[in-house]
């Protein structure tokens, strides 16, 4: 075999060993999306009442419902309708809502996704910044007062559920101190910068990932500080700030980056609670609203969209990690 062919072969092998875990992950994600949409679909079949009865209203006669069912194509067997639904969903066509005035679901999604994404991105930035900062401080001051304080604070952050924290924050800051609004959608909303309305939901959503990231960063930094190269650079007289900021920080950051990706899943479910409780009309609010109204097409659409977002974000983390850490890049070759 010639040299060129050998290099080509090797680079192909390199590409596959790099791409394989990511492709597998994508495959798992897609299969689980299929699985979840199937469960939702079948469960809806089992549950009494369908889109036609919901659309027809309570006073409709059986014949009217039957006619509507035929019009909406609901009298065909469910596997056919499921396949049809998948086909439409892959073209991002989710149809219309079946409860109340028929509204195109795409329009609802387009209205609700931006605000949810805004809150999620702000929350993850806040969580990452303070999590990494507090974690680093705690690790440097291991077992001292600052460390103890940060650790107990993060324990609180992990255990207190967001639906307990949010009402308490609203009670203190909106009702007692009157410095923040009581909810995002106010009937007589004054002209104030939007950030003002986002503070409480973002802080509540950020607290838990912040706590987990703090703990992770602390543990990771403590491990790094115990390694040989740190002792060497101390012996060589590296000033403390340079030691922490340049030598240790990047090494300690890697597990934390992975965790930022996984905490996005928490942000998704957290946003269901926060958006419902603070009346933010985002995708979480939309999903819960759809469930309480039994609006099946909307339930399916919100499930698929949130699930898809989760999978994409985790995929992005998988792609970014090797760029940050040469060791991962090497180990994948």
């Amino acid at each position: 075999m010639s040299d060129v062919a050998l290099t080509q072969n090797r680079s192909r092998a390199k590409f596959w060993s790099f791409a394989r875990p990511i492709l597998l992950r994508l495959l798992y994600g897609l299969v689980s999306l299929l699985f979840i949409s199937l469960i939702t679909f079948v469960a809806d079949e089992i549950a009494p009442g369908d889109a036609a009865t919901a659309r027809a209203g309570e006073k409709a006669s059986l014949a009217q419902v039957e006619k509507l069912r035929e019009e909406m194509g609901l009298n065909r067997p469910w596997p056919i309708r499921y396949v049809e639904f998948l086909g439409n969903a892959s073209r991002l066509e989710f149809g219309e809502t079946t409860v109340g005035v028929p509204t195109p679901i795409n329009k609802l999604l387009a209205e609700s996704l931006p605000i949810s994404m805004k809150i999620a991105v702000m929350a993850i930035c806040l969580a990452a910044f303070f999590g990494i900062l507090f974690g680093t401080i705690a690790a440097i001051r291991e077992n001292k007062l600052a460390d103890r304080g940060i650790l107990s604070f993060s324990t609180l952050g992990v255990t207190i559920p967001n639906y307990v924290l949010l009402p308490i924050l609203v009670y203190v800051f909106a009702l007692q101190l009157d410095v923040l609004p009581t909810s995002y959608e106010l009937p007589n909303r004054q002209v104030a910068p939007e950030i003002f309305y986002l503070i409480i939901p973002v802080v509540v959503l950020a607290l838990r990932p912040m706590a987990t990231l703090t703990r992770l960063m602390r543990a990771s930094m403590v491990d790094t500080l115990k390694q040989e190269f740190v002792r060497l650079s101390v012996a060589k007289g590296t000033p403390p700030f340079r030691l922490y900021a340049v030598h240790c920080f990047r090494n300690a950051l890697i597990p934390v980056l992975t965790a930022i990706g996984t905490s996005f899943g928490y942000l998704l479910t957290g946003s269901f609670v926060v958006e419902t409780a603070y009346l933010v009309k985002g995708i979480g609010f939309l999903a819960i609203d759809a469930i309480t109204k039994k609006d099946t097409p909307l339930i399916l659409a919100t499930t698929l969209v949130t699930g898809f977002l989760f999978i994409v974000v985790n995929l992005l983390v998988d792609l970014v990690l090797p760029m940050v850490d040469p060791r991962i890049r090497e180990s994948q070759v």
Partner: protein
Amino acid sequence: MKRKSGLSPLFWFGVGYLVLLVIFAIVGPNMRHPFDVKVGGPFLYPSDQFWFGTDEQGRDIFARLAYGARTSLVIGLVVQSIAVTVGLIVGVASVYAPKWISIPIQRFTDGMFAFPDLLLAIMIVGVFQMGVGPVIIGLSFTAWPAMARLVKNQIATLKDREFVVAAQAMGAKTPYLVIKHILPHLWGVILAVMMVDVAATILAESTLSFLGIGVQPPEPSWGQMIAVGNLNKNSYPLMLLWPCLILSLTIFALNFVGDGLRALVDPKKNQAI
């Protein structure tokens, strides 16, 4: 960071609190008022007649908390028992079953991790009718994979230990091996993890009830009481305070007990995370 050996005061605080909570859940509902009957005016402050006050419909908050405790504990324990049973079967099968069973099982378990738990539970509960039954089904469905992974990892470390290999060499069949030699080593870890997972289940149940898709009124649950308290927090903050307090304390206590047990069973893994 290594903790001192022996059980911390926090562990004993947790045990004490949980014992009180169980007594509260068993005795409480019968000693005061029925949970769904108007017994006084709305928004009454605590008195010797209504120990924790009354809610927006004049129902006794103490009685409702006690019923809520019963609901939460029952759901937590039932869900985790199902999760442990399924997790044990799946975990053992994914190590000892023939390949054509174990590989699909492993893939399926891995696949379950590809999606956020609570989101899945919300969807399952959402499309069935809401209530205690669907909540148990939905949460069990999302709780077993973690247990299966734990069992599988534990067995993987036990599998090559001398006493297991010796038993195998003496001709022990797989079922005998698993029941007599493997399982006795797992109970401690499972119990410790189960404590923490019961806390997670109770949290998930309250989340669903808070969102209005879990336990349905008039049957009381903590999550739903927090949701109603949230609406009335301006006029009557006490109604928000009680369920928040009891829920947070329960979660703390279960975590302390779980951590303590874990430290007892598995001293090496006793780290800050």
